[in-house]
């Protein structure tokens, strides 16, 4: 979840722990039932609404949880603006500002206690297949301790969400995904705000702009740019910045956002998500469905580990079996659909799945890092003996088979990788150097002065970046890309009146997405969000969803009135006749 700066934390970023990736990681926090061992003693937020009298028709004061303005200014401003529109339709809103840790802890572990929260989902390559968001966010099986933290429950949705998982026919699956988005459009379980744009920039005198790839939903900071970028001058090292420090380099541990960019380059995968967002064979020469539950991957010839050993089918099988036990809790779910992995001859691997799973190419074959059996088998055995898992282990010199080799890691300073000339898709650059730069203004200055030549992490004001690019006479190129993630206001369906879809539609109508995009994202750094499947995923995003673009307080009040709601003399919202405040 948090992160981004920070948000820094292991599963994505954010974090970041950043910090970047901590936020991102936390956002993905899911099933943790019963694990609230140390949940700090926060009082229930519901206590704030204790003022509402039992038996009264008046809707209690409701709280919106949000991080401090300094952490994510856009989020905070979005909430302030939305709260104002909701007050206009009779809600008594209190904006509760709290640190990210406290907010996430409340939302995830005390699911009965909060009314509304600001939230965001971040984009990551495996989310380019809509399955993760479709299933995890709104399927009722994840209400209790999973990602459906708002508590949205709709049997019709559940049925379609399960159907799209096993539908291997692309056209038929697209149709199901459209229907799912239409249900969400009608029910408005979230008040969607925007799909933010990811802003990255690079020096056009150092890197040939034609070789910098803008990947769908991800932006120009991606695998294809890193292997493909062609140097134009003597400077053949790519120097990038990260705001959150790398915590670990481990192919069996998703330790953060910045970390994942490094692991992706050192360790190769059977398939890779291409710039259009679709999985393509990569370390595998080809991947074929033999039947609904059987996949056959043919390995490329002459693949080598960085220590000079050949990559064999045994290594591939080991790479998919190792995370299945207790060694890699974070990768375990991605191999869960596999029933068996077996060798066919000396260059083919057969994956037998437990049931048809359309997204497996993206979430399985494009996700798992290939690891050398000769290195990891003894390591894992040793770790198992000590009773700890692979996350606790850091290789002295990481060995993969990817396009970049590990050179050096100065903690909290920089990571140096060098091009693997023997790779089948050998990078054009000499070295890939990622510098820790917690100060985003210094990173932008460094890009202008040439200290870095690829701005790969920028959370500052996009207008400043735009100005820097505009005034550079073309020396800097800014690329702004719609991402797969989105920002939204999440109401808790467990608590009246938010379980009522009419109320949520009225809220969406009152808020209006245009004014958020225009006022807070300067119109051009975000796109209105209307679905959990981003507009970046053109192949999956349903057309003609309700857009709730313009704020219309009158129409919102009409929706509430029609659903039986009323207002008291002070203008505050009353429940329909016969219904009273129960909290």
């Amino acid at each position, binding site marked *: 979840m948090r992160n981004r700066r920070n948000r820094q*934390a292991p599963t994505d970023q954010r974090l970041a*722990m950043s910090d970047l990736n901590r936020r991102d990681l936390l956002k993905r926090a899911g099933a943790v039932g*019963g694990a609230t061992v140390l949940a*700090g003693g926060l009082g229930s937020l519901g206590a704030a609404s204790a003022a509402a009298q039992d038996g009264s028709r008046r809707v209690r004061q409701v709280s919106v949880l949000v991080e401090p303005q300094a952490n994510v200014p856009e989020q905070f401003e979005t909430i302030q603006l939305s709260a104002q529109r909701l007050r206009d339709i009779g809600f008594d809103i209190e904006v509760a500002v709290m640190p990210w840790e406290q907010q996430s802890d409340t939302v995830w572990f005390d699911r009965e206690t909060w009314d509304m929260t600001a939230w965001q989902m971040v984009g990551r390559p495996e989310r380019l297949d809509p399955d993760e968001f479709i299933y995890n966010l709104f399927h009722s099986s994840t209400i209790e301790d999973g990602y459906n933290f708002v508590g949205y429950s709709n049997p019709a949705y559940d049925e379609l969400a399960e159907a799209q998982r096993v539908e291997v026919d692309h056209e038929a699956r697209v149709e199901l995904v459209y229907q799912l988005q239409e249900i969400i459009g009608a029910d408005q379980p979230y008040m969607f705000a925007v799909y933010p744009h990811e802003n990255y920039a690079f020096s056009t005198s150092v890197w040939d702009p034609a070789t910098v790839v803008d990947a769908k939903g991800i932006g120009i900071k991606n695998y294809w740019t890193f292997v493909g970028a062609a140097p134009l001058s003597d400077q053949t090292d790519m120097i990038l910045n990260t705001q959150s420090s790398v915590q*670990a380099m481990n192919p069996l541990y998703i330790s953060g956002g910045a970390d994942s960019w490094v692991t992706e380059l050192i360790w190769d995968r059977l398939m890779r998500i291409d710039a259009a967002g679709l999985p393509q064979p990569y370390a595998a020469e080809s991947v074929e469905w033999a039947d609904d539950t059987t996949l056959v991957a043919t390995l490329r010839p002459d693949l080598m580990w960085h220590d000079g050993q050949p990559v064999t089918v045994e290594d591939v099988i080991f790479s998919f079996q190792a995370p299945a036990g207790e060694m890699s809790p974070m990768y375990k779910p991605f191999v869960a659909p596999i029933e068996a992995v077996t060798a066919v001859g000396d260059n083919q691997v057969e994956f037998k799945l437990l049931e048809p799973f359309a997204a497996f190419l993206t979430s399985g074959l494009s996700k798992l890092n290939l690891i050398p059996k000769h290195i990891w088998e003894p390591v894992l055995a040793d770790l198992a003996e000590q009773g700890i898992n692979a996350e606790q282990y850091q290789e002295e010199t990481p060995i993969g088979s990817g396009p970049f080799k590990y050179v050096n890691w100065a903690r909290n300073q920089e990571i140096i990788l060098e091009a693997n000339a023997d790779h089948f898709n050998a990078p054009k650059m000499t070295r890939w150097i990622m510098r820790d730069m917690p100060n985003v203004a210094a990173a932008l*200055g460094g890009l202008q002065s040439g200290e870095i030549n690829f701005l790969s992490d920028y959370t500052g004001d996009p207008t400043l970046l735009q100005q820097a690019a505009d005034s550079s006479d073309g020396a800097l190129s800014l690329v702004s890309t719609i991402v797969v993630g989105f920002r939204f206001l999440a109401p808790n369906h467990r608590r009246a009146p938010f379980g009522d879809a009419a109320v949520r539609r009225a809220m969406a109508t009152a808020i209006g997405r245009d004014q958020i995009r225009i006022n807070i994202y300067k119109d051009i750094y975000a796109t209105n969000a209307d679905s959990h499947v981003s507009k970046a995923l053109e192949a999956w995003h349903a057309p003609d969803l309700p857009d709730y673009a313009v704020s219309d307080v009158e129409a919102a009040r009409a929706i509430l009135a029609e659903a039986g709601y009323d207002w008291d003399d002070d203008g505050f919202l009353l429940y329909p006749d016969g219904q009273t405040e129960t909290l």
Partner: protein
Amino acid sequence: MPPRAVYFIRRLGQMILVLWAIATILFLIFRLMPGNPLVAFIDPTFTAEQAEAISRQFGLDQPLPVQYGLYLKNIVTGNFGTSFFQKEPVLGILLEVFPNTILLTGISLTAAYVFGVIAGSVLAWRRGGKLEGAGIVFALMTRSAPEFFVGMLALAFFSFNLGWFPSSGVASPGTIYDSVFQQLTSADFWRHLALPALTLAIYLQGLPLLLMRSNMLEVLDEDFVTMARMTGLPEWRVMLSHAARNALLPIVTALTLGIGYAIGGNVIVETVFSWPGLGRVLVRAVQSHDYPLAQGAFFLIAVVIVGLNFMADIIYSVLDPRVSTARQEVA
């Protein structure tokens, strides 16, 4: 037993008591903070069972008293544990950034105190002059300007505008050093150190400057200064050998404390200049609920501060025996 030995033992006992209290507060403070470290670890696809396994792995499933007992035992044996996130021994992580912090703060402190003492003496000597008026305004301005503001100005001017110094880090991109010694003796390192050290020194010089000035003003009224003047010594000798020497004593006390606090690193300067020091590690550890790392860092800082105080006490008791015997009489 001689009074001094009794005093020594009593102070040692007090020091251990203080460290135990600090350790206990550190233990509780992180566990009472909102949020919990598991949140940072959790993947949406985790099952409750997996989450519990992680919790077990860190000992977070144990009751608090048990966790506390283990914690104290580890501290006594010098084991600060393994960082939750970096998966490495806490001591190693801290020692890796320690030289950077020591150098940055050491150099800044030295520069700030040398400048502050001299400038403070001069301002006191020129009491009532234009120089004093301007100097006080300068000292107050630099003392109250936020470090990040001074830092960004220094960056904008010396780095981005003039290009004299690099803007971030401790080394140029792609530099690999074989040893800390090699790093510290390279010109590249010192070029990177210049701006952060300057920023920190500008921030730190205000205190010694103002302190020195007021001490000097007091000392200048003392009889022995009048006496020195009457003996016909040149003014500069009166100022340096007689007045300044005596005015320095409180500065030494301030410096001792300053060193202690500076060990904690300087989060703001380290962040502005991307300086890999203890402050940044500490802040990130706190944000991510990395208990072992944060506790280890705070505890080390506490040991250094308490230890320096202890040494100062002992030295004082040697320099001025009244310090130890006075306590005896009270007892």
